[in-house]
C-alpha cells in the first residue's frame, strides 16, 4: 500500500507535479474559501475559461503564456463587465461571452500555425511544469497566505455583514478588488498545470468540501488546504498507476472528496436524527 503511494514520486516529473500540487493547494485552499463564501465561484469559472484566447494567442506569437494569460484575463474581465449593461440577467450575458471566448480560443488553437497542442492549454500539463511555474506558485502562495492572514478579520467582517461594513469602518468595494486581483493571479499561476477548463476545480472544490463540515472560517481554510493537497496528490498517484491524464485525475479526486464528504454528512445527519428520536 505504502509502495503504491510512494512509487510514483520516485519519478522526477511526477515528483515535480506533486510539488506543484502542494503549492497550488496551499495557494488555492485558503483563497478558495473566500471565493466560495463570497458567492463568486461562477465568476472564477468564467474568468478561467475566458482567458483561453489569451493563452492560445501567446502560444501563436511565441510570447510567455503567463503574459498571454494575463491579457486574456483582462479581456475576459472587461467583456464580462461590459455585458452586465445588457438587459439580460448577468449569468445569461456572462455565459454567452465566455462560451464565445472559449470558441475563439479553440478556433485559434486549431489553426495550422498553432505550435503547442490545444489540449495542454485546456487541460494543463501537470507533468511538464517548469522551474518558473514552481517558483511562481511558491511566491504567490506566500503572498496570498500572508494577505489572507492579515485581512482575515476584515474579510470576516465584510463577508458576514456587507451591508453595514462601511459603518464598521471597512470598504467592501476595496476588498472585492483585492480578492479579484488575487483570484486572477491564482488562476494565472495554476492554469499552467491544470488548464483553463480544470483550474477552477482546485480553487472551488476543496473550499466547497471544507464548507460542508466547518462551523468557523479559519478551520475551514486549514481543512480546505489539507483536502486540496491530499486529494490532488492522491489523484496524481492514481493517474500514474492507471496511466491516465494527470490533470483530469486530480480534478476527479477533488470531486470525489466533495461527494464523499457530502454523503458522509448526509449519513451523519440521519444517524444523529435517529439516535435523538
Amino acid at each position, binding site marked *: 500500500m505504502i509502495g503504491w503511494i510512494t512509487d510514483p514520486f520516485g519519478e522526477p516529473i511526477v515528483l515535480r507535479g506533486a510539488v506543484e500540487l502542494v503549492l497550488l493547494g496551499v495557494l488555492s485552499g485558503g483563497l478558495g474559501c473566500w471565493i466560495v463564501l463570497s458567492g463568486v465561484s461562477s465568476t472564477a469559472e468564467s474568468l478561467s475559461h475566458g482567458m483561453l484566447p489569451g493563452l492560445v494567442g501567446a502560444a501563436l506569437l511565441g510570447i510567455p503564456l503567463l503574459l498571454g494569460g494575463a491579457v486574456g484575463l483582462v479581456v475576459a474581465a472587461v467583456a464580462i463587465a461590459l455585458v452586465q449593461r445588457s438587459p439580460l440577467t448577468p449569468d445569461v450575458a456572462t455565459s454567452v461571452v465566455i462560451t464565445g471566448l472559449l470558441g475563439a480560443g479553440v478556433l485559434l488553437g486549431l489553426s495550422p500555425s498553432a505550435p503547442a497542442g490545444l489540449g495542454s492549454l485546456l487541460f494543463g500539463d501537470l507533468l511538464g511544469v517548469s522551474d518558473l511555474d514552481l517558483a511562481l506558485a511558491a511566491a504567490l502562495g506566500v503572498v496570498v497566505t500572508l494577505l489572507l492572514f492579515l*485581512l482575515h478579520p476584515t474579510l470576516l467582517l465584510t463577508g*458576514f455583514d456587507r451591508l453595514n461594513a*462601511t459603518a464598521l469602518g*471597512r470598504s467592501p468595494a476595496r476588498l472585492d478588488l483585492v480578492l479579484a486581483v488575487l483570484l486572477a493571479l491564482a488562476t494565472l499561476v495554476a492554469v499552467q498545470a491544470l488548464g483553463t477548463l480544470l483550474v477552477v476545480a482546485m480553487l472551488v472544490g476543496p473550499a466547497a468540501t471544507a464548507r460542508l463540515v466547518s462551523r*468557523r*472560517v479559519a478551520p475551514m481554510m486549514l481543512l480546505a488546504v489539507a483536502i486540496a493537497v491530499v486529494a490532488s496528490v492522491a489523484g496524481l498517484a492514481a493517474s500514474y498507476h492507471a496511466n491516465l491524464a494527470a490533470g483530469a485525475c486530480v480534478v476527479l479526486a477533488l470531486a470525489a472528496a466533495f461527494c464523499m464528504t457530502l454523503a458522509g454528512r448526509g449519513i451523519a445527519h440521519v444517524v444523529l436524527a435517529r439516535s435523538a428520536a
Partner: protein
Amino acid sequence: MTGARLLVVDDVAAAYPGAAVPAIASLTFEVRAGERIAVLGPNGGGKSTLFRLITGELALGGGRLDLTAVRCAFVPQTERSRLDFPVTALDVALMGAVSRMPWWRRPGRADRELAREALRRVGLAAVEDAVFGSLSGGQRQRVLVARALVQDAPLLLLDEPFSALDVTGAERLELLLRELAAEGRGILMATHDLDQARAADRVLCLNRVQIAFGEPAAALTREVIERTYGGAIVDLAAGAAALLPTHHHGERR
C-alpha cells in the same frame, strides 16, 4: 434632559445620488447621554436614511450634523444578516473591536476579553461558541448589540431592533437598552411600533420631513400620528383605534 449632548442635528436634509426629491428634510433634534429616542415613521419615511447620515455613509445635503460623541455604533436588523456564514457569536462580537483597528491589525487577547464581556452583558455568555445563524432572532439581535458595545460607542443606533423578536426576546432587549441608557449611552432606535415609541424618553416622528420631536406624551398627538403615517386614524368600538395606512413602499438603504 440633563445629559451631555451626543448628537446635534440642525435643519438637516439629504438626497440619494441622482434622486430629484430629498429623502429627508427639515430635521432638527438632539440626542443626549442617557436618553432613549425612538425614531417613528413608516417604511420609506427616512429612518434608515437618517442612520446612514449619522454613520457617514450618506453625504449631508444641507444643514448641520454635529456628532460630539465621535463614535457611534450601528445595530442592523438581524433579519438582514447572513445566517449561512460560518461565524460564532464571539466572532461577531469581536467585529466591534476590528472596526476600531487598521486593516492589518488582528484582534488580540484583550479584544477577545472585551467581546466576551459584551456577550456576558447581553446575557449570551453561554452561547459564545454557537454559530450565529443557529441562534434565535432575539439572541442574534443581542449579539449585534454586543458587537456595538465592543465598539465602545457612546451613541447606539438601532434599526428596528424589535421587529424580529417574540415577546420574551423583546422584553429582554427593552431591559438591556434601559440599562445601557442608564449607564450614560444615548440610544436612537428606529421603529414603526407606537407602543415602542411611547416607552422611549423622547420621540422623533419622521415622514420624509420631521413631523414632531419631544416627549411621547406631548408629541404623539392624533394629528402627529396621522401625519407621520400619512393615513387616517379610525375610531373603533370600545375606545380602540386603528390607523389606515395609505401607502407602503420599500425603504431605500
